[in-house]
């Protein structure tokens, strides 16, 4: 390969780099990829029983438009996804105010993006009821209302709130903790 070949190679490379832009990110939606990543991440949660159905509360903001519909769609999709360690998901939807009052046990609470405006309340509920809360919204880490933030839009991002995890007695494997972003 002579200089000419190298120049062509370099030019192609530069063109490819410059032509590539940043894609638009979807917001407010929990995708199937997000749910699959959440399912995978739960495989490293020590408290889940092997093989037993995982009960999930999908929590939505009562006052947000289409929030209940989106939560219902998310719950329906989650119920079709294989859980970790040969388990399945059994999910139902709850409004934020109902989460505070329910006496049902949930292994995991999935906070829809629509609930992020009530992060402080959700954090208080999670601590009081020792709930393993998960959200796809990065806001949940700032408001300390989710134990895990899992987002699969682009490069999979997983953030663990170590303080909240301790408060709700959620224990993940050391390997998992070493690989995620810890706050």
């Amino acid at each position, binding site marked *: 390969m002579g200089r000419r070949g190298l120049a062509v190679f370099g030019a192609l490379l530069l063109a*490819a780099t410059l032509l*590539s832009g*940043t894609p638009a990110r979807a917001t407010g939606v929990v995708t199937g990829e997000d749910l699959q990543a959440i399912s995978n991440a739960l495989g*490293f949660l020590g408290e889940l029983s092997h093989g037993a159905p995982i009960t999930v509360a999908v929590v939505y903001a009562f006052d947000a438009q289409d929030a209940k519909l989106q939560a219902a769609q998310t719950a329906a999709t989650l119920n079709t996804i294989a859980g970790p360690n040969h388990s399945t998901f059994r999910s139902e939807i709850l409004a934020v105010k109902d989460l505070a009052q329910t006496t049902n046990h949930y292994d995991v609470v999935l906070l829809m993006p629509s609930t992020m405006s009530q992060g402080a309340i959700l954090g208080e509920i999670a601590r009081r009821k020792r709930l393993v809360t998960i959200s796809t919204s990065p806001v949940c880490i700032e408001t300390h209302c989710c134990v895990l933030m899992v987002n*699969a839009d682009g490069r999979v991002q997983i953030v663990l709130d170590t303080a909240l995890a301790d408060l709700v007695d959620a224990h993940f494997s*050391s390997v998992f903790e070493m*690989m995620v972003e810890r706050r």
Partner: protein
Amino acid sequence: MTGRFPDLLRAGFLGCAAATLLFAQAAAQTIDYAALEQTFGEPVTTSATGSPQRVTDAPVDMIIITSDDIRRSGAHDLPGILRHAAGVDVLQWTNDQADVGVRGYDQVYTPRLLVLVDGRQVYADYFGFTPWSALPVELSAIRQIEIVKGPNTALFGFNALGGVINIVTRNPLYDDTNTASLTGGTQSLAEGTGVVTVRDGDTAALRASMGGRFDRDFGTPVPTDAGATPRRVDYRGEADLDGIVRLSDKIQIGLEASHSAEGQNEISPDLTFEYSTIDTDSIKAQLSADTIAGLVRLTAYTNWIDQRADAVVAGNPSVLVFNDRVTVVQLEDSLAVDPDNTVRLAGEYRFNTMGTTPEHDGTIFYSVYSGSTTWQWAITPSLALTNAVRVDDLSLGRSGLSPQFYPFTDADWNKNLTKFSYNSGLVWHADEQNAFRLIASRGVQLPSLNGLGALLSVSSTGVSVTGTPDVKPTTIANYEVGWDRNLDDLDARLRTSVFHQITDDAASIEGGALFTPGGLWATPANIGNSRADGFEILLNGTFGEGWRWGSSYRFEIVHDEFAPFAQNGADYVDYDRTTPHHLVKLNLGWSGGRWDLDGYTNYQSRMFGLIPAPGPVGTVEENIPGYTSVDARAGYRLTESITAAISGQNILSSHQQQTTGPEIERRVLLSLSIAY
């Protein structure tokens, strides 16, 4: 080999039992590569820092060859797979012998690359090389091949100088691997492999793999300078048992035993043509526990390797028998100390011993105590700094008889050597698309056991040959800057790096001379320094329905500063002119329906190789023109579990000069494989 396994089994079980008691407070599960890869959407590695990491977070320049890459390569051996990897040099000397280098500096029996299988060293210390055909691993049992470019001695210890290749096999506890294959091809190749996994629920699993191969060497002429040893049949056989028991959700014990045997026509370290046989055995025990003190691993293994070669040493016909035994015990703990810091502490003991050859009355040995620590600091969510330091303290020794007029006494080997190494890496994920790496590292390569005195050939008329306790380790300093970019619109990824390497105290196998009343003794010697500057560009991606592509380019300039007697390739080493300036690799593949089609092109610019000099010692250079080679594979799934494939290497040329050994012939393989 009688008595090898019982002692090690006993030691392994005792070690594991003790460790089980020690870690009774354990609290979560150990590394499941498949689950982690699925979770994070990219391969996971422990080869960068010792702790599990996503590849894109690793503070090293690393590439990973996946099991899909292996299958699509069409290769039936490891060098055949590695020759498609970006920035990797492969010198194919004969049909079954190849040397693999990273960022140039590749040579026959190259000592600069540390190779491991699941963390167990398969690098042979007596020459400092990797006998690829003798590795006890089948391709279908491999999960991924991790290639770390640049030194990583701070993690792996001595000899991780130019790079590290860690071959990670599938964990029988998590992965069902049941395969069988039959392959036939040119050069009278006949090969069969089989891998079976059996499990008892999720508490215990055993994987058995075995394979056997016969073929003949290339029919192209052996260069006259390389001698006239007649060719014989090449063969390879291996068997490996890998068992894991889960004592609890938090603790696993693994036991592995392997045996391999190979015989091949090859080019020897002094560049003569010979036939060599190698037998290896290994046994390994490992305890992994997820404890309140972090992820703890205790590993102990012993490797035995016996090589026999009919060779000519400094003009003297000799039967060389190398019998090396190395025992390694490692204890490590990786702990997420707080949200921003992860620390790994490790200690290691290593004992290596080998009898002298062809004069077999002496033994060379050394023990090494090592301590290391790795500290990963997440300065911000997007900026991480990793620092690793390691100290190795080596005690060298020799026992046994010495020949008359030998220039040393056993007391000359009573030496201690303390060496430190480090790896530092700063990784900045500037945004979703861009990441930058800044790397500095220092590695150390020990002289081989032969270089330290295990090779001992006495001549009554010519030049005698011996290793020496006075040869110094080779060190390397590496500095590099890297930039990764995701090209989402093109569904492609760009990885670039610019590197500068300084090698001090490079060694040659016969550069020294000692005079005694018995005559001249040729010894290894440190011949000088070398530095390399270069850059690498790797771009790969996918498009359309089922298409995949990749391209890479490496440019490298090496400058040697050797002693006058070793210049211009006169003393078995010339990194400057045996490293090609340009290395280009391209691949294009498509999968659709039942078909997998893949093509690979390698271009390597002109370089020089070494051939034996007319006298008893020394070498001269020979020009090797630039060449382009093309490999291809077409696979067709006959059923869900049965695949037929035809593949070829160097398919556009019936024969081609790639080294100073015999020319490489076209190779075509037909295979039938079953996965169930």
